[in-house]
């Protein structure tokens, strides 16, 4: 009978064999960490956590984390800890290990129980926490220790940047819209009474009462919710630009004043409903735009987030923490495995492998020993080294890269949206027309009152609702359609830019091709033990090694006496007294092995004791929709260009297969970005598609950057569009969506202009009665919204 049975751990709910568990009565734990946390929680009376968590699987608590005392260091305080209005300390943390709402509850509860903690608020969606505490009662390090003791981890992030600002702005829009919508809805039902009275008769007293009620409701809408328009109009006037805000502000304000006059005179029709409607509708339109806007500061946050604010410096025979700016040229810095190198320098002690993919795109680890130079921005994989800095932080490669990226992001063209440009002319024309109408009516002797009302009716009827809604509604529909197809547009304006694109630049590996070479042909010259080759390639991370490993798929493994990787060449190993080599031609040449073998594919030579025993031909497969994409876009007149870091032969074979005429090979990351910059100078609008860190600079320089969802984090962060399913089909979908949406925006603008062209002359002639104004206003807005909804229908038909 087999006794081993899967049992779930009482804390983390992960399942293991019963035999392996720590047993304690009826309880089962997978490790000491889980056991510790379980008892801690029940001692504290927090065991209802497990009821809340249900069967959610948690991560077992980590064993020993580094000392939390650096949370109390002055330099940490300076950067992350802020004072709240009452003088308490406040810090923003990201909590790691949150799986469910019960985790949030547990963390908050545990922190609330601590003396001195005043507030602990954890956001479930993004795992960010705000903690307020009294510094004289409890230290931050103690707070962190509590979080760690219950199985989570916390690290600080700088919240002072764009994020808080964006949240604040969004919140202020929520407040303003709530007021506007509340008041408008109430005004609407009062207006129903007004219109009913207009047709069936109403006494002047009741009318005045209704007017006063509307007045009370419209006032906060105009001056609180509509404040953004007054502010916008003010800045517009200051910079001598007639903008939409000015039209909305003057229109609403004049209508408001006129309506007050009517109410007090107790004669005629008041238009308070128009005032609140205009403000509410346009405010919603504005909010939709704000919502879809990506914050450039957000992006920079993400690049900077991995840069710690302190490094370990070796001074006077001991390791001390020092701030980045305090490190001088010539200081010795200590880097452990898994840590990021922040300074450029030369190794003085130790050795190990470094991952330089973030700078070169080379995915193979590079082995470095004493005397080799280390570059900032790279990551130590298994190296524990001491190195002497050759540059200070400000001039290091890493901070140069960050600066380059920053400037590239800031330089991104601010797209002047078509609707904005149009509305500028539109606003000036309407204001002028209204004024002329007023003058003409007044001089052709009519009472001031009548002429003023007709002048205002021109502004009211030209209600910018339709115009203001034209763009946001269409883009919103486009964006949601994209999301359904796995295309994430980070900013609405990109739809418009993308529709105008004339050049598409593609990265090869991972974008056009799958990025995983596969073995095409195997040439065996002499029999050998396959398990040697399998173990040989298994220890390497290079894509070629992985391809061969997949091809062989052996289950036997051997252990080598010696094993090392030679960057850009291959692997060298010792096994049972035999020297084993595996790699490209360069490695053979270096070892004086001569062989004549030609192929257009990547070649892997396998050599035992100076004799070539096998040759593998590998090829990276082209993605299946690549050819279609190039064909479609070429038809549309978009030039397609491929850039690759690989050699000419491989580049040519991929380009031929896909049908690309223009391609450039052996490109470094800098070459790529220069290439983009040059195209831009020639007046091209460029979409760059890539996936790796080595494309980041080029991506940042392009008008629109598109990144495969499986790409590196930084690339995804700085990109404008993310293709979640990595397929080139969605890339062509993205093009289609953007051009459809852009067409829709144009139609919407046309509709609202035609509407105005018909109604404005009527208003100028004095034919517009309030009922007509109200109805036509809603109809024009509905037309625009309805037209935008058509995009789905149109898409399904295609």
């Amino acid at each position: 009978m087999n006794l081993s049975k899967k049992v779930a751990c009482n804390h983390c709910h992960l399942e293991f064999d019963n035999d392996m568990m720590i047993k304690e009565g009826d309880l089962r734990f997978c490790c000491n960490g889980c056991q510790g946390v379980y008892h801690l929680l029940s001692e504290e009376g927090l065991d209802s956590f497990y009821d809340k968590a249900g069967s959610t699987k948690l991560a077992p608590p980590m064993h020993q984390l580094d000392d939390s005392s650096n949370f109390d260091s002055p330099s940490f305080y300076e950067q992350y800890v802020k004072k709240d209005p009452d003088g308490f300390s406040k810090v923003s943390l990201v909590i790691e290990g949150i799986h469910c709402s019960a985790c949030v509850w547990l963390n908050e509860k545990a922190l609330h129980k601590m003396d001195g903690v005043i507030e602990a608020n954890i956001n479930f969606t993004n795992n960010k926490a705000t903690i307020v505490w009294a510094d004289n009662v409890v230290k931050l390090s103690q707070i962190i220790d509590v979080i760690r003791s219950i199985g989570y981890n916390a690290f600080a992030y700088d919240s002072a940047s764009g994020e808080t600002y964006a949240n604040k702005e969004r919140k202020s829009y929520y407040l303003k819209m709530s007021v506007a919508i509340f008041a408008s809805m109430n005004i609407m039902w009062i207006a129903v009474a007004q219109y009913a009275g207009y047709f069936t008769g109403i006494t002047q007293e009741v009318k005045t009462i209704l007017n006063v009620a509307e007045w009370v409701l419209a006032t906060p809408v105009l001056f609180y919710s509509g404040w953004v328009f007054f502010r916008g109009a003010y800045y517009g006037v200051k910079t001598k630009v007639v903008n939409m805000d000015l039209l909305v502000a003057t229109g609403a304000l004049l209508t408001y004043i006129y309506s007050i006059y009517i109410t007090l005179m107790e004669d005629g029709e008041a238009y308070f409903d128009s005032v609140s409607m205009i403000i509410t509708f346009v405010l919603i339109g504005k909010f939709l735009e704000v919502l879809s806007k990506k914050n450039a500061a957000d992006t920079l946050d993400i690049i900077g987030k991995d840069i710690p604010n302190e490094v370990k410096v070796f001074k006077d025979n001991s390791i001390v923490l020092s701030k980045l700016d305090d490190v001088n040229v010539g200081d010795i810095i200590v880097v452990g495995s898994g840590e990021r190198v922040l300074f450029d320098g030369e190794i003085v002690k130790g050795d190990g492998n470094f991952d330089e993919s973030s700078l070169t795109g080379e995915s193979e680890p590079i082995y470095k020993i004493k005397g080799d130079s280390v570059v900032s921005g790279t990551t130590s994989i298994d190296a524990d080294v001491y190195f002497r800095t050759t540059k200070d932080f400000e001039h290091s490669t890493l901070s140069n890269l960050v600066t380059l990226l920053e400037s590239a992001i800031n330089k991104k063209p601010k797209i002047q949206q078509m609707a904005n440009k149009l509305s500028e002319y539109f606003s000036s024309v309407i204001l002028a027309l209204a004024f002329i109408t007023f003058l003409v009516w007044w001089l052709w002797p009519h009472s001031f009152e009548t002429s003023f009302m007709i002048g205002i009716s021109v502004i009211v009827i030209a209600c910018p609702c339709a115009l203001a809604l034209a763009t946001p509604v269409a883009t919103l529909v486009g964006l949601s359609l994209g999301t359904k197809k796995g295309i994430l547009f980070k900013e609405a304006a990109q739809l418009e830019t993308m529709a105008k694109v004339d050049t598409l630049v593609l990265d090869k590996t991972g974008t056009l091709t799958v990025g995983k070479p596969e073995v095409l042909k195997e040439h065996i010259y002499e029999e050998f033990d396959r398990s040697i080759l399998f173990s040989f390639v298994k220890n390497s991370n290079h894509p070629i090694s992985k391809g061969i490993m997949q091809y062989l798929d052996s289950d036997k493994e051997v252990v080598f006496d010696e094993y090392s990787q030679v960057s850009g060449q291959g692997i060298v190993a010792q096994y049972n007294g035999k020297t084993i080599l595996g790699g490209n031609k360069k490695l053979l040449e270096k070892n004086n092995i001569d062989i004549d073998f030609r192929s257009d594919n990547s070649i892997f030579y396998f050599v035992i004791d100076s004799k070539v025993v096998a040759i593998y031909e590998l090829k990276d497969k082209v993605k299946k929709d690549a050819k279609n994409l190039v064909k479609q876009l070429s038809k549309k007149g978009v030039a397609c260009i491929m850039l690759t870091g690989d050699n000419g032969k491989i580049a040519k074979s991929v380009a031929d297969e896909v049908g690309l005429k223009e391609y450039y090979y052996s490109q470094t990351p800098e070459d790529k970005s220069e290439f983009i910059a040059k195209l831009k100078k020639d007046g091209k609008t460029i979409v760059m598609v890539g996936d790796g860190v080595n494309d980041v600079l080029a991506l940042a320089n392009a008008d629109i950057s598109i990144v495969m969802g499986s790409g590196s984090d930084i690339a995804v962060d700085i990109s404008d569009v993310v293709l979640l399913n990595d397929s080139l089909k969605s890339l062509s979908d993205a093009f289609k969506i953007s051009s459809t949406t852009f067409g829709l925006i144009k139609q919407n603008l046309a509709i609202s202009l035609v509407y105005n062209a018909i109604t404005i002359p009527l208003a100028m002639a004095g034919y517009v009665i309030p009922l007509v104004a109200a109805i036509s206003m809603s109809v024009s807005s509905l037309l625009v919204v309805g037209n935008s909804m058509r995009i789905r229908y149109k898409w399904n038909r295609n």
Partner: protein
Amino acid sequence: MSDWVIAMMLGASIFLGAVALVAFLWAIKNGQFDDEEKFLNGAKFDNEDDLNDAVNLERKKEELKKNYRPE
């Protein structure tokens, strides 16, 4: 007389609506809707304990405020 009734009814209903609006605005400002997940979970999990917790926290804050001397 009927005019007076209309005015009173209008005033009363708008006032009541405004009270609800102010409560809603207060909740937004207070950050109660910042995290939609939490706000929805609140309906599932909140119980007497949590209310007591919130009150205790307020009291703790007041007490600390009294004795607190920022350095």
